[in-house]
């Protein structure tokens, strides 16, 4: 059986890729995609811990399901914001939408 650490390493790598995408990408859609990656890395962790540590209970599955729903909602809100910003300012680049600069 694949040891737990492999899942964890995978999840860490996935989170790192997502984080990098969220921080480094210029396109807002790509940033949202990076965030989705990080959420999925968390999901992987949850499921791996549930399967290896407490398989008798279903808490981990419920968490994962809720997280999927949250991720879907988050993506929907994020894309709606991006469309709204694009309509107003004709751009999807966060670095050009700096109205809140101090």
């Amino acid at each position, binding site marked *: 059986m694949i040891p737990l650490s492999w899942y964890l390493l995978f999840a860490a790598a996935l989170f790192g890729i997502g984080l990098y995408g*969220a921080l480094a990408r210029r396109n807002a859609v790509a940033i949202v995609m990076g965030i989705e990656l990080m959420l999925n890395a968390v999901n992987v962790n949850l499921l791996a811990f549930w399967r290896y540590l407490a398989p008798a209970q279903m808490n981990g599955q419920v968490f994962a399901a809720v997280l999927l729903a949250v991720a879907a909602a988050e993506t929907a809100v994020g894309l709606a914001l991006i469309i709204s910003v694009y309509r107003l300012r004709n751009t999807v680049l*966060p670095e050009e939408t700096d109205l809140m600069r101090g």
Partner: protein
Amino acid sequence: MLATIAFLIPLPPLAAFAVILLFTRRHRALSTAVAVGMLALSVCGALIVAAGALRTADLAGNPIAESIPWIPGAADGSGAIRIGVWVDGLTVLTLCFVAVTLFAIFIYSIGYHNFGAPEGRQDVPGLPPHGSTAGGDARRVPSVEPLYTRFFAFISLFAFGMLLLVLSDNLATLFIGWEVMGLCSYLLIGFWFARERARRAAVKAFLVTRIGDVLMLLGLALCWQFSRSLSLREILDPENLARMAAATSGVPGLSAAGLTALLLLAGTIGKSAQWPLHIWLPDAMEGPTPVSALIHAATMVSAGVYLLLRTAPLLSAAGAPATDAAAFVGAFTALLAAAIALAQTDIKRVLAYSTISQLGYMVAAAGIGAYTAAAFHLAMHAFFKGLLFLGAGSVIHGVDHGAMHEGRETDTQDMRVMGGLAGRMPVTFAAFLAGGLSLAGFPLLTAGFWSKDEILAAAWNTSTAVFIVLAAAALLTAFYTARQIALVFLGRPRSAAAAHAAEPSRWMLAPIAVLAVFAVTAGWAGIPDNFPILGGVIPNGIERLLHPAAQPLSSAAVANLMETRQPICCILAAPEKTPFSYAALMVSFLVSLGGLLLGWLVYRRYQAEQKDPLERLLGPAFGFLQAGCRFDDLYRILFAVPARWIADVVVSDWIDRRILDGALHAAGRAAGGVGRLLRNGIDLPLINGAADRIAGGTRRAGAELRSLQSGRVQEYLLIGLLVFTACGAALVWRMLN
């Protein structure tokens, strides 16, 4: 019943004062009627009370007295002031002569102020009338006084004050009457207020008498302190007097009674114009002549002596310091004023100094214990001096008439331009002669002789020094009286005004005639019983009225006095009758007749423009006497100049400008310095600085922190990551160590 009437006596003139000022000011006839009518009520009341008192068997032991509470005291009744009336022999005598002279002079004033004459076109309020040229005649005729009704209002108020004073049974209302009269005196001396001299005289009279009044008020305070009462009957109660004589006053050598008596004597000195406060009375002659007659001869100046006699038991209890002071002041004033009167040329000033001199007689008489003689002379003096002033007013009026007739301006009070008026004004002459002889003490016939003789006889028996001074003063009195009569009435007229003088109206002559009768006959009521031949022909009413003035002490008080060794018990006992002395009588005859004869001999041939015969005799001393012994100048140098110097230099320059202003300026500067110190030391650096630094720090912090707020979402995320990483690293670091 009698007490109630006595209560009411002073009030009608007060009502007249109010009614005239408030309602009838514009109606001369109505105002006259109100004033005279109200006074007539008072006079009737006074006569009823006097008659009732004379019928009372033992008036001294059983006086007509009643009092009502006025100012409430403490809860136990102590310290309350009661006011009321007290009619004993002295009150009756004073009330009679006050009522008679008041009434006579009210009537006289009607004529004096030319009631019924036309109004002068050039007359202004505050100046005597100039006369009018009514009827197209070039010659002026007298015109009515512009402030006619005001005069009657003022003398009505004065009558209230005098009657109140005479009837008072306590020092509180007595003092009120005293001050009301002082006010009226001021108002009436300054009645012709457009004259500079009248204004100055009014202020002078007011201020000089004020000195005496303030001291008298202190005396009242002492009375209150030692007797807990202002009621005369309680103060003069023998046991209370014995207590006061035994108490110490705080002044070395003076008992409480002594100090009180001296302070009351000071009041007398001010009011009765005794040396050294006599200087106001001659100047007071600036007032209209009825005022001089009423206030400054017959009544108000008598009030001072009246006070002295009213409080005579206190004076007796006070003993030597107070009685000696009274005797000295009185005798000295009598001689001094008589000497000054010798050299006066103004007809009224002679009489003014004569008044001072005669009042000095009374004060001296009180000082040597001859209270009866003093009261007798007080009454007689009111009659004959009132008469003399009215006569003088009549003379001035007559000469004024002559001056108007001639159309010339003449000083109508200067005796040197008169002369020969006996022929022009026979009634005035006769009356003036009666008054003058009475003043000079013409033997046996006149009132002045009997009263003055009684004082001289008393002095003969008690104090030789006082007797000599008073006899000398009597000689001078007779001399200046003869001089005045000779200058005014005898010889030839020395000016056109005098040549055309005319007798005044009947309004003026009638009161003069009445007073002339009194000035001669009133003294017959006081002929001593032990006088040869005449004694006892007419019962001695004055003696009977006044004699039992002093009451014997109770045995307890005598015992008390024996313990304290105060030598007053003998004085407080009923005084003995003055024994008769031929020597004193001879002196009295001699000085009176000799003075009159000398004066007549010296002045009967006086010519116009001639030097006064006395001036040739006395030389520079005459000028000194003429200037009133330069007391005015002396007081100016002693008091007025230093007072002005103190005001100008010490108070204004030094104290006010330098010390007070300097202190204020220094305080101002110090406050300014403290303010600057606080501002520079505390306000600016600490409070302002703190606020500034807080504001600046906040602003700088904002400026620094704003760079964080880039508006880029990814940078925020990065910062968040870094912070999270740092916190996480710190946590891990803590957990590992």
